[in-house]
């Protein structure tokens, strides 16, 4: 602490505002990768500190801010998961235990266990399960392929089709946005 390095990024994100707007969306993924709530909270903290620290590395012509932040969140979570998995060996279930869980088929990752909501549950299971694993639970496509016992090409293809289906659901139903807004408003109503 005697020679504490002071960091002052050039650009200035309003971290408080970003936290208010995005923390729950990022935490949704973090908490699905890291089951331990205490550790998940630490990962969320690390994520936002990194977002602040590396904000000048963000390039808006390469990705949206949310995509960039989600990548940081996911990578931080996966790294934390692996370091924890290394530390505590085989006591935790998850990504690194895929081989042992290979008997546990897709049926176990259903909408109940993942607490999935709305749109994702409206697409075909074979697309949904891949998007859940990869987008919400931090699996690589290789992990997902191994887990689902599918060729990696099929996984990649299903990612593409699944996302397109979701996109069509969202664009076909602009009411969804309205629902989200009204939902947020009603939540706000109760919180005020």
């Amino acid at each position: 602490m005697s020679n504490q390095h002071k960091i002052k990024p050039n650009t200035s994100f309003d971290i408080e505002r970003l936290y208010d707007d995005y923390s729950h969306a990022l935490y949704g993924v973090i908490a699905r990768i890291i089951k331990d709530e205490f550790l998940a909270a630490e990962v969320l903290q690390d994520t936002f500190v990194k977002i602040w620290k590396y904000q000048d590395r963000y390039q808006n012509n390469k990705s949206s801010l949310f995509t960039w932040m989600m990548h940081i969140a996911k990578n931080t979570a996966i790294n934390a998961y692996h370091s924890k998995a290394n530390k505590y060996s085989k006591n935790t279930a998850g990504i690194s235990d895929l081989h042992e869980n290979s008997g546990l088929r897709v049926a176990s990752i259903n909408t109940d266990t993942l607490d999935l909501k709305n749109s994702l549950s409206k697409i075909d299971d074979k697309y949904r399960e891949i998007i859940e694993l990869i987008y919400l639970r931090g699996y690589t496509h290789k992990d997902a392929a191994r887990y689902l016992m599918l060729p990696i090409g099929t996984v990649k293809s299903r990612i593409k089709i699944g996302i397109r289906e979701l996109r069509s659901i969202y664009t076909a139903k602009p009411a969804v946005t309205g629902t989200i807004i009204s939902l947020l408003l009603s939540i706000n109503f109760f919180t005020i």
Partner: protein
Amino acid sequence: MMSREEILESGLIEQYVLGLMNPDEIAELESYFERFPDLIEYRQAIEQTMEKIAFDNAIEPPPDVKAKIMNEINTLSGITTQFDIKTTKNSNRWLTPLLAVGALTAILFGYLYFDMLSSYHNLKSDYSTLFANCEEANRIIEKQEAHMAFINNPNTQAVILSGTALSPNSSMLVHWNKVEQIASMNFSNLPPAPAGKTYQLWADIDGEMVDMGILNFENNDMPQIPFMANATSLNVTLEKAGGADHPDVSQLFVNGLII
């Protein structure tokens, strides 16, 4: 080199958005974005879709994380102001009711405080009065005890002065202590002295009437009287105001012997 359509069909943009690519693949795809700017629009559409999925599956983080983040960032940037971990946005839903409860509690305690303060002042005032009364009572008791001790002293004798023919119903009681050499008048029912007149006390010493002073009954206390050694009797006459050098024996109201 891939065509625009091949890129779209490859699913590479989806993998890019999902963060499934290695740096080389990323660099390659980004070069395609430069070449086919409309691919960027497609990428943005995918990003929006994924963002919606994330928001659909959002989970509220524990309430203290925000303050921890702000504190860590402040520490890293050398700002000393620390966020109060208890008052972050995520606890806002409790803030209003908490403030309301706090305000009501404050009002209640404020009321109780002033009510108790008022009671305290009243009690303090009552206590002062009682304390003063008690002091006064103690003073009287001490005086009475001293007086009782004087009266009960074996060396104290009661000298009863009886009314003469001039005032047969009058009487007076004096306590006389030759050892302590103290005299005390303790009872008198002489009629009030007429205007311009006053009662005067005399001691008979060796046949001489010696002046013992004017008896002033104007206040409720008995008059203080002196002790006279060798006095054999006490006598009260009615004299002109201011007293006389010699007693007017025709105006002798009460007298009594000292044995």
